[in-house]
């Protein structure tokens, strides 16, 4: 999980995940300070919400022994960070700041205190607006325009009904969110595993499927174009691929064409190939 392994980290696992959860920010420090402040200065109700619950969680699900000997057995280590969602960090920091501001006399003191606290959070945090506000999306679907164009052309070529297509990994991940009439030859988890992910599994695939998809991925990701073209074409046929979509600039274009796939259309920087039955 995020490069942290329970077996290797042992009892330090919880701390490492906590630090990773907080990222390279001061949010964790602000949270702990907020809890301390509310423990010392808070009313009973505030101590109940912000302190009692944090202490309860510290002794239970954040207890390193419980994690190592119980959660580990339940197979929940990879998603352990989700337990930190239970800790109301955002609320606690916000509430503590509000209480500090409220403790000032009304007027310029409150504004100054609020501005100072906000500045501490901003400068110590990692802003989602670091790159500025997002510009308006390409279209109402918030998908690349070239994807929409490719899908339209594929339907023109293939006609009605479902069609099995090989897409490059970036399109493979998003195309069915736009148009589920395309059946994907490449399984999402297979693509992610091929790209190095260790958080997904290809257990649902047969060995033959893994072998065929690996060969296809080897070519379309331009990882290794030394594969025998007949092998590549055989894998396409085994997986019942009907079309392949590649970027026009891909080094795999000439390979795929030489292997026997027929280029049918070029659209918005992509070439659509038809896989013929040989």
């Amino acid at each position, binding site marked *: 999980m995020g490069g942290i392994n329970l077996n290797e980290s042992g009892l330090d696992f919880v701390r490492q995940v906590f630090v990773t959860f907080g990222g390279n920010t001061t949010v964790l420090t602000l949270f702990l300070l907020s809890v301390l402040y509310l423990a010392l200065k808070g009313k009973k109700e505030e101590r109940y919400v912000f302190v009692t619950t944090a202490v309860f969680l510290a002794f239970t699900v954040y207890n390193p022994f419980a994690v190592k000997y119980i959660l580990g057995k339940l197979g929940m280590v990879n998603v352990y960070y989700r337990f930190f969602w239970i800790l109301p960090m*955002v609320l606690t920091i*916000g*509430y503590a700041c509000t209480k500090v501001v409220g403790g000032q006399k009304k007027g310029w003191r409150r504004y100054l205190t609020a501005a100072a606290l906000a500045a501490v959070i901003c400068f110590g945090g990692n802003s989602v*607006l670091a790159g500025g506000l*997002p510009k308006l999306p390409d279209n109402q679907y*918030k998908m690349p325009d070239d994807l929409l164009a490719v899908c339209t052309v594929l339907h023109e070529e293939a006609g009605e009904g479902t069609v099995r297509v090989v897409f490059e990994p970036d399109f493979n991940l998003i195309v069915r969110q736009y148009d589920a009439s395309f059946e994907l030859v490449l399984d999402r988890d297979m693509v992610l595993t091929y790209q190095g992910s260790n958080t997904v599994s290809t257990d649902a695939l047969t060995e033959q499927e893994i072998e065929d998809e690996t060969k296809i991925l080897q070519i379309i990701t331009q990882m290794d174009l030394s594969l025998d073209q007949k092998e590549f074409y055989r894998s396409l046929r085994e997986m019942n691929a009907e079309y392949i979509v590649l970027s026009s600039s891909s080094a795999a274009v000439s390979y795929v064409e030489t292997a026997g796939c027929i280029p049918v259309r070029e659209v918005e920087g992509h070439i659509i190939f038809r896989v013929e039955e040989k």
Partner: protein
Amino acid sequence: MITLLKMPALFLGMLAVFCCLGSFFIRENRYESGHLGETVLFGFIAYYFLFELISVPMMVLGAKLHLLAWVWAAVVAVLVIASICLHLGMWREWGKRSGGFWRGKTAAFYVMLVLIGIQLYFVAALQENGSADAAYYVGSVTTNLATDSISSFDPYTGKALDFFNIRYVFSMYPAANAVLCRLTGLHPLVVTKVILCMMTVVLSYLVYAQIGKALLKEKQMVWVLLCFISVVNLNFHTIFSNASFLLTRGYEGKAVLCNIILPFLFYLGLRMYQEKNGKRVWLLFFMTGVAAIDLTMSSMMTVPVAMSAVILPNLVRKKRWGQSGLYLLAVLPCVLVLGVYLLGVRGILQIPVVR
């Protein structure tokens, strides 16, 4: 053009439905009226609680999506009409009070509106397609729609499934979104990545507002609280944080879990501590457990822990040992689902897809 009209209509329509469903939890003679935000939140929980109860049996029995959509539309219509008829007095009172809402608002209120407005724009405009989980959450919606089925096809590839994916089987959030798409004619990407992302932001801040109202003496400070929460959310961008899920992955059930459900459980725990809501709070805990599962299977681990964190200290503090049974009932839905999940991943239990 029609899409541009349908989008706000769906957004406001959903809020209105939540309001109507939530009104069944409010009693004018026993509860302070005027808690519109709380009513919307109760209604949100009731919506997904009911959807889970109706959709899971239909899914297991192989019902088509269009049938689920009609059934759900009928159920919601009946409840909305009932709410309007039974609570006309309350609606009239809220209508009268709404005119005075804008009076006397401080600078903090307007700063809050700007900050939340920035977040709403951000989630609506963000075109980020690198999330592998979106291939499931949004892919499931389009798959359900394209095949007129409920979770019977692999969202990643479109292949027909022989067994339901045990990792997601009880999470009907994609099916609920598919129903919305079916009823409104809007594309899944518009519903999930624009409308529901914005809805998640609005409901999240509604929860925080309720917590603030319950704790802060000076009511105008609630706006200050929401301002600070906004600042933290905008600056807590890490790979795993709830703020990141809120602003970059709001269409996922996990985002709703960590930004609405879990804070809402804290709110319920606080109300229990303050002796508000009476026995109704137990019903809300139970319904939240079921609604949480409907949204995401991640709830099966986190929600029982969160409930324990807010309930058990209450029971110990007030020595209400007799209510331990109610506590066990509240966590039961999630624990049962966890049990089914563990049996499923070990290959002991599989639920076949009926066609």
